[in-house]
Every structure is written in C-alpha cells, then in structure tokens.
C-alpha cells in the first residue's frame, strides 16, 4: 500500500525525519516499508505566477519573442520566449534565476540563470506544464493559469514539490493503519510526537446547513451492517477536482474521476473509511435506503459497466426494491455521480468483514473499499469521516458553488463499541520480555498508543485500548506485545537460554540407509508428494489441487523415481543411480473410517517412510582397464546385493528374508519380487524388480533399469540391536557341496533347507557357482563353513553333518549330488 510522505506530514510533523529514516523506523516497528519512491519531478523555486504585459519581436531572430512580465506589484522582468500560445494579459508560470525545472526534451534538470539570448537579456523562463513536471495534455505551449495573480508562489499553489511514496506492507491485524491518518497516528506513537487531528469541524460552514430532505435507513440485519450513516448535499454544480487532491491521489496510484468521487477516494485513503456518493436525482425519490441481502437473480450494473447477478451471499443497498450498489464493494452505474449531478447522498457505514469477504469472493470482485471492509473498518470512524468529506466538499467547492447546502446526518444502528478493560501484570510483562520496566514506563508507552489507564497499583495496570484497536487488542498478552513493540525489539537485551534434559533419541534408521546408498554412489532425490491422479481408488485426493500433476498423495515413491529417471535420461544422462527416502500416504482402514473421521484430532491416514532406489547403467567412472561389462541379466542381482547390504546395515537378518515373484504394473513380470521378513509373523518389507519391458521400450532404454522400494517403518520395527558375541578361536572348516536340481526349485528354498538340516555348527552357507546343465536342470555349488566355538571339529563330525543334509535334501527334493 502506498503512503504519501507529505500527506502523512499533515497529521504528524515530520520536518526532522527524512523519508528514508521514517521508512527504516516503520520497518523496525511492525510496518515493513518495501520501497521508498519519488513522485513528481524535483522542481525547485522560485517559480512565480507572472502576468504578460508586452510581447515584442526579437531584433535578431524570428522564432523567439521578447516579453515583459509582471511578477509582483512592483517588479517587471524581461524574458525571452519561444512559444506562440501566449497573449498579453495571460498569467503564466515564471521560473526565476536559481530555479530548477525540467528540460522538455529529455526531462533532465534545467537550472534557470540570467542569460543573453541572441543579444537580448532573459531574466527567467516562462514554463510549460511539462517543464513543471505536470501531466497536462497541452504540454507544448506555455501553461496559461486561470484564477492566479502575479506574485503567487506556484510551488505551493500548484503542489510542485517532489513527494516521497512509502510502499508499506499492509498488516492484516491492523485495519486502523490502512489510511494516512491511521498510519500517522502510529508514527506519532512510535516517535512520541503530537498527533494533528484532521479538520472535520463544520462550524465555520453552519450557515450552509439546511434540512432540505429526510432520508430513511432500514437495516435488515444489524449483524451485517451494525452502523449506517447518510448525509446529503444540494445545489452542486460540476467543478474540477482540486489540484491538491488530484496530485495526492495520483501520487498513491488513484486515478482522478471527478470532484465528488475524488473527495470520497481522498477520505478513504486519508481516514480509512470507504465512502460512497449517490446521485440523488437518479433515485426514485422516496428516500428509503434499505440494507439487505440480495435476492435470487437480482441484477445490478456496477460502475465498472459490468452486470452482476446477485444472490443472498451479497449484501446490497437498495432504494426500495431497486439495488443501488453492492455494499462495501462497488456502487451501481444507475446512481453514479455525473457532470449534471445536483444533489448528492453520501454514505459512510460499517459492514461485517465476513459478509463482505464472502460477497466479494462470490462475485470475484474486489475494490479499495472491499479490501478495507474485509479487514474491518472502525465504527468510531464512520461519523468523522463523513464530516471530513462534507468539510472537504465545502472547503473546495463553496468558491464556485456558493449555494451549496448540506443536510444533517441520518443514522441507523449503533455507534457504540463495547469497551474492554484489560488487566496487565507488571511481573508478567517483565518476565515475558526479559526486562525490568516500571509502572510509569509501561503507562507512558501505553498512553502514547492511545490506551486509557483506568487504574494502577504496584504491580497491575487496568487499561482500555483505543476504540480503533478493539479488533487486535483483546487480551493482556496483546498489551504486552504492544509494550514490547514500542519499547523496541532491538532494545530488549539478549539472554542465554537454558539447556534442558534430552529426550531419548530414536536411532535414525533413515540417515543410516541414506549413507549406505550414498556410499554406493547413489544420488539422493526429493520429489513432490503430490502426483498426478492414478488408477488406485484408495489414494488420498486433494480437493483443491493446483493442477492435474499435483492431485493425489503418493502411495509409492516409484512413480516419482521413474519421473526423475526420465527427466535425466532426456538430458543425456547415461548412468543413473538415484534414491529417495520419503513418506507415502494411505488411508489406514476403511472399515473404521466412519467412526474415526468424527474425531477432530485424528486423520486415519498412515504415513510410511519408504526408501526407494533405481539403478540404470554403470556408476563406475570410465574404466580405462577395459574390463568386460556386466550383462543386463545382472542389473537385478546387482541391486539386490545393494538392497541386502542396506538391510544388513539396518540390523535385519538376511536369513529371515524371503522373496516371492509378483505382478507389478511398472515391473518386469519375470524379474520382480516382493520380499518379506519372517520373524514371528511374515511381514512384507518391499519390492524389487526390473523395469517393465514396456517402459524400457517407451523410454528407448539401452540398458535395463532396476528398482527397489523398502518400508523403513517396518525395518525399524524389526531392527535388531547390535550385540557382541565372543570371537571363537577354533578353526573354521569349509566344505563345498554341489547339487543338481530342477530349475523350478527356488534357490532360496534349497538354501534354507540346507540351513535347516545342518545344526548350529554351520556358521554360513554361500552359493559359489551356478551352472545350467540343460533346459531343466541347474547345478548349484554351496560353500558351507563350520565352526564349533568350543572344540576343533573333526572330519568325521563334518562328514556326518553333510550326510545328514544330503539325506534330508534327497528326501524332500528331486536332487542329485556330485
């Protein structure tokens, strides 16, 4: 929001505070100033109104002429002029030596000096509007002034001084500071300067007050509109908007419309009170103003020339049955102020913030007015703002409209606000802020902010917030905040915070898993948890997604992994090893959801931490020793080996993990598995597999890609704590056993059978070779390591274990031994 420095200066004397230091101060006291810009050119006086007495030809030039210009009762200057629109008797702006104006060719600074032009003295310069930095259409010729007399200081009269504009972030909790007067009140409090009230006293215009009509106000529901004021003016004839008002509005980005509308906008930005003006002559003259909800399909053409279809969401002002305007948002075209308006009705009201917000949203229409009503206008401000508007109209309008009359104010509703008394404890203030303030210091700060001190004793103050702060100051802590703010956050001393006991920290399984994968050469990725809609019916959907690509919460990390894989493939990456460690989201149990959803503290959503990895290609640096590359067939086993190392590092016993072939839409049906942990019960841990050939084909892949996904929550559940076992000193004895089996027997079954049949002396069992004998038969060699921690095993003992294994294997499987 833009604030004019000179306008603020109307209400608080800023002559010793530069715009930049004001901006810095406000930034440190809750009103962040984003930028300080300038408005208008840097025009410097003396620039005086002068009357042209003579125009004579230049003896040495055709295109320029000599003028004699009267600049005061006694002083006449010779000035050379190149413009031809002037006549004797015109009053024009004269820049005297020492002045700075604008160079009309390039807008650079043009200093005025006494000079000789082709031999003739020129003691100043007659100026065009453009040279004075004014946006007049007629910028080529000299600016001919109406109603000015020689000697008038034009810097003041034409508002030529450069102004500074502060761009201040509006605060949602401070509707009282959405205006120049409100902001000036804040500035006065911060600096402890006196506040200058705006001129609203109509006493000097008493003879223009006349009860020439009576207006009836009917409010349907006081919740929507607690207070509503109207006043009328008659015998108005169109006149130009005052220059000062135009310049000020323009400086904060508000376009000048006409005298009356400009005044209402001026009051809006000065007092923070939205105003509306109706052309009384366009109403049906029965003088009833009704504040009510819109009726179904009621239509109004707003002043933006668009037709709006209303309903009961919208609050409207109606003249009997005819809608005049959308309350708090925009007026209607039919009662708009025009050049012929003679009698004006001014409205100043308080509307419910919520009502206006819903109405504005519903119509998709907002305005400077609705913005303020949505944040809450101050009821106490309604009347003085209305008086301020009348004051300004009379002040600027009476000279040309001497018959102007204004009515008394018609009101409906209640202007009273409930005053709150708040009790603030001094000890609490000091303990919260880490200060040692006294009652007197606290009282002074609060009085600067407009609080009334109702009573004080040694440790307590009873205070009443000012009527413009009733919205944001409702409890003692709000008062403490205001004390802190005015005392200055920078003045609060730094205190070392105590350390307190640690909570037991759970071992971070996530970091462990990540470090294993990073060590393997994987790059970590973070993908969006909102993904495009998929076929899964159970997925959690966002009701208001920003796009189709972010519609449901992921149930697996695999789609994200594949997307990032694709993204990097498209950027010519040939070897991609990536992983993600993040949450997936599912609805817990559909049966109970109806009862669960009633509990406002639970969501019935399961968030599961998953680890998912993808390998594609080789992640070794280019191997100049030119070893043979692995075949595609190995991608699966390569990733499986990594997965097994991750699991081992997480404290999982690999002997308890079993694999089972699965069908997964993204994975190769012959080369993918789910794996489970067989502790007390069988628990699925995740899946692993090669990317489906269809995806391979679609992405035009040269190598095979492999993926796994592992449920870390489950791993955490089964994770074994490391425990020391004493190291045996007895020798380890190895035996190889080679078994020919049918291909359909799973290696995992064979191995667990071996482990089962051997006794505890078998310390590990490893597949060391695999050989396809023919289409149906495979030959497997296992190396078995035996050890007894207490004695050295003899060959006979080991032979008997091996025999037992062989015997049991042949009983249960179709096997032969070599």
């Amino acid at each position: 929001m833009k604030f004019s420095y000179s306008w603020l200066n109307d209400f608080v004397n800023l002559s010793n505070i530069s715009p930049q230091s004001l901006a810095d101060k406000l930034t440190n006291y809750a009103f962040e100033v984003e930028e300080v810009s300038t408005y208008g050119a840097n025009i410097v006086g003396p620039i005086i109104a002068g009357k042209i007495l003579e125009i004579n030809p230049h003896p040495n030039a055709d295109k320029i002429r000599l003028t004699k210009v009267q600049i005061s009762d006694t002083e006449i200057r010779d000035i050379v002029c190149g413009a031809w629109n002037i006549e004797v008797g015109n009053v024009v702006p004269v820049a005297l030596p020492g002045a700075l104006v604008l160079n009309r060719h390039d807008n650079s600074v043009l200093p005025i000096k006494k000079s000789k032009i082709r031999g003739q003295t020129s003691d100043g310069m007659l100026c065009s509007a453009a040279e004075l930095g004014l946006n007049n259409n007629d910028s080529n010729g000299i600016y001919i002034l109406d109603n000015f007399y020689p000697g008038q200081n034009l810097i003041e009269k034409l508002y030529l001084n450069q102004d500074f504009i502060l761009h201040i972030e509006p605060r949602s909790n401070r509707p009282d500071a959405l205006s120049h007067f409100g902001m000036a009140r804040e500035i006065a409090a911060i600096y402890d300067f006196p506040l200058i009230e705006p001129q609203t006293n109509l006493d000097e215009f008493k003879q223009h007050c006349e009860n020439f009509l009576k207006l009836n106000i009917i409010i349907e529901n006081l919740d929507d509109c607690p207070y509503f004021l109207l006043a009328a003016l008659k015998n108005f004839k169109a006149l130009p908007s005052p220059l000062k008002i135009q310049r000020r509005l323009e400086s904060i980005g508000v376009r000048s419309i006409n005298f009356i509308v400009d005044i209402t906008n001026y009051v809006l930005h000065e007092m923070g009170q939205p105003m509306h003006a109706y052309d009384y002559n366009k109403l049906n003259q029965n003088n009833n103003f009704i504040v009510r909800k819109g009726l179904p399909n009621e239509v109004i053409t707003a002043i933006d020339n668009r037709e709006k279809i209303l309903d009961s969401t919208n609050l409207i002002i109606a003249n009997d049955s005819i809608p005049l305007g959308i309350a708090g948002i925009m007026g209607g075209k039919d009662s708009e102020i025009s050049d012929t308006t003679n009698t004006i009705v001014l409205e100043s009201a308080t509307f419910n913030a919520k009502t206006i917000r819903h109405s504005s949203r519903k119509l998709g229409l907002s305005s400077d007015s609705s913005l303020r009503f949505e944040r809450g206008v101050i009821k106490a401000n309604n009347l003085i703002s209305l008086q301020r508007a009348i004051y300004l109209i009379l002040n600027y309008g009476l000279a040309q409209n001497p018959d102007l009359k204004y009515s008394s104010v018609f009101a409906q509703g209640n202007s009273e606000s409930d005053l709150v008394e708040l009790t603030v404890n001094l000890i609490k203030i000091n303990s919260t802020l880490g200060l040692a303030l006294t009652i007197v210091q606290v009282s002074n700060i609060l009085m600067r902010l407009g609080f009334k001190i109702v009573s004080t004793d040694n440790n307590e103050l009873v205070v009443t917030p000012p009527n413009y702060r009733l919205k944001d100051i409702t409890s003692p802590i709000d008062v403490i905040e205001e004390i802190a703010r005015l005392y200055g956050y920078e003045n609060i001393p730094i205190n070392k915070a105590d350390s307190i006991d640690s909570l037991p920290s759970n071992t971070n399984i996530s970091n462990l898993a990540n470090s294993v994968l990073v060590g393997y050469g994987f790059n970590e990725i973070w993908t969006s948890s909102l993904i495009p809609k998929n076929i899964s019916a159970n997925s959690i959907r966002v009701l208001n997604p920003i796009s189709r690509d972010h519609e449901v919460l992921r149930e697996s990390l695999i789609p994200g992994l594949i997307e990032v894989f694709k993204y990097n493939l498209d950027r010519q990456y040939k070897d991609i090893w990536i992983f993600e460690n993040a949450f997936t989201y599912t609805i817990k149990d559909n049966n109970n959801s109806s009862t669960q959803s009633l509990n406002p503290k639970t969501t019935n959503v399961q968030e599961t931490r998953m680890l998912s990895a993808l390998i594609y290609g080789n992640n070794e640096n280019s191997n100049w020793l030119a070893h043979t590359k692995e075949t595609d067939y190995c991608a699966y086993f390569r990733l499986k080996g990594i997965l097994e190392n991750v699991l081992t590092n997480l404290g999982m016993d690999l002997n308890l993990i079993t694999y089972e072939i699965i069908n997964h839409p993204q994975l190769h049906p012959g080369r993918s598995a789910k794996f489970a942990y067989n502790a007390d019960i069988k628990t699925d841990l995740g899946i692993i597999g090669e990317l489906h050939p269809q995806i391979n084909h679609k992405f035009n892949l040269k190598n095979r890609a492999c993926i796994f996904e592992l449920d870390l929550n489950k791993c955490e559940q089964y994770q074994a704590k490391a425990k020391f076992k004493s190291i045996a000193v007895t020798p380890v004895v190895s035996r190889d056993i080679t078994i020919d089996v049918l291909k359909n027997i799973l290696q995992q079954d064979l191995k667990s059978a071996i482990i089962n049949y051997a006794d505890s002396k078998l310390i590990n069992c490893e597949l060391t070779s695999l050989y396809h004998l023919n289409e149906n038969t495979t030959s497997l060699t296992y190396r078995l390591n035996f050890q007894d921690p207490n004695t050295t095993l003899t060959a006979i003992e080991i032979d008997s274990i091996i025999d037992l294994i062989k015997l049991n294997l042949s009983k249960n499987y179709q096997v032969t031994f070599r």
Partner: protein
Amino acid sequence: MVFNENFEIELNNIKNEALTKLTDINKIDLLEIWKQEYLGRKSKFNDLLKLLGKIDSIEQKKSIGELANTIKETLNQSYENYQQSLSELEITKQIETESIDITLPGLNRKSGHYHPLSLICQRIGNIFQGMGFNQVFGPEIETNYYNFDALNIDFDHPARDEQDTFYTNVAPHVLLRSQTSTVQIRAMEKTNPPLKIISIGRVYRNEEINARKYPIFHQVEGLYVNKNVNFGQLKWTLQKFINLFFERDLKTRFRPDFFPFTEPSAEVDCECPFCETQGCKTCGYKGWLEILGCGMVHPNVLKNIGPNYENYEGFAFGMGVERLAMIKFGINDIRYFYNNDIRFIEQF
C-alpha cells in the same frame, strides 16, 4: 695314515669344488640344487662321512670329524649368504620391471551425493541439537484442529481459506498441514513441561509454481517451554543459530510481526551475507534477508494444551528450509530442488 691324509684332502676338495660352483650360481632354484648336491643326505660330503666309521683311531676320528663339521658349517654359511643376496637381487629385479605410471586415474565408482535439502536439514538439526533441542516428528496429513484451532487461528482467519490450504477427500477436517507448528501442539500434548524441541518436515500451500514458490516445501519449527522463558532468550537462540548456520557473525534485526500463535511476534532479518547490508541481487537490494518468524507462545495456545502448562512460558520459531538452502548455496530457483537434475544434485 695315507687313508687319513686322503680323507682330509678329499674333504677339502669337496669344499673347494662346492665353493667354486657356488660363484656361478645366480638363481634361487640353482642354489637349491647346489644345496642338495653338497649338503643333502645324498651328497658327496655325506657319502664321505659314512666312511668315517672305518677309521680306528679315536683321535683321528675326532680330528676328521671336526674338520668335516667346520667344512659343513662353512658351506651352510655360504648357502645362507647366497640365498640372502640372491633373493634381494630378485626383488630388485621385480621392482625394476614392475614400475607403473602412478598418474593414471584411480579405479573408482562415482560418489553419490545427498540432496541439498538433506544437507541443510542435517545442518539445522545438528545446530539445534547442540543447543539442547530434541528432534521430533509429526504427520503431514493433519487435522483442522492441529493446523488451526490449537494454534489460536480463528475460524475466520484468511489462512484457512481454500486458497492457501489443501483439503482432502479423507474427511472434511483432514488437510495437508500448511505449517510445522502443528508439531508444537502434538509434542506438548505428549510431554509435560519443560520441553525444548525442533521438528523439520514437509508442508503444503496452495500456490502456483514459480521460481520463488512451490506448493511443497519444508519448515523447521522450534519450541522451548519452561518457567521464566523470555524474549531475550529467544533473541539469543536465534542469533546463535544464524551465526552457526552461516558460519560467521551476522547482524540480526527483530521486527514486530503478527502471528496468531505467538505474542509478541517478530520477523527476523539477518544481514545479507553476500553484501553486508550494501544491497545486492540476493537480498533484493535491501541489504537484509528475511530468515524466520518467531515469538513468545500465545497464552491461549498453552491454555488449550491443559492445566500442566499453566504457569509456563515459551518461545517458538519457524523457518523455511528451501529459503535457507537457497541463501546458503546461492540457488536462485526453488524448482531445482524438485526437478532432481543429477547435474544439480552432484554439486552438493
């Protein structure tokens, strides 16, 4: 006697022959053959010694025996010397032939990289853990209660608007949390005061994607509740954090702000580490960077938790992980974090 003399001559001949042969030997395996020939069980030397028994005189036996032993020792000694020098020679030769270009590249895997947000989260976590904050976690799919009500955010507050918060089909009160402050409440409900926690996690806001905004981002939330906690301690904690995070002493600026769940509230700026308040592109020519929001926990929030939080005070703070990462690493577009271009990740 002749036999005796011959015996001695014979022994010396064998010795001389052996030593002469030895000088021609230049390989370990030849040395072993030599050893067999002169010192083995079937050596000439041994053959000769077998005849020793035929000598009658004990004296003679003794003297020849001594001679034989001396010679045997000499040969053994020579063998060992030769073995030593020959193996040294062979290692020298091996070294000569095996030298490599030690500048050829090492055989290695590409190293993996953590995502920059991981690194920042770890860094933030470590700093606060060092100050005694315990790290806790809370769910991302939340309820109206934890995301708004418990945090003193009015039913009518604009933040509750659909325009800012994602709602779900799970239930009308279930939403994607828009701030990690939810964890404050969950932690206080579970633990009796005092407590000192941080939580780092993912949050969601209904915002269009551009260089500065992404509907998904991460926040760090901190909370300290104890008796006599004050604003000065909050200032100390955050000043300390900023210095540790940026690895240098940076000026800070606490500006009054408004949040429903803290009061007094402040926005904290730190001196731009790139231009030292002179103004540059990173700080938008302001000289200061907005880093975090903080304040004293609102009494209503504590009151909502329950009577065990009566008579306690607290401070809380929250900051954006992406923003800190962007400042720390000089990243100018938030979308880099979620595109996961390997050329991006490999830089960290």
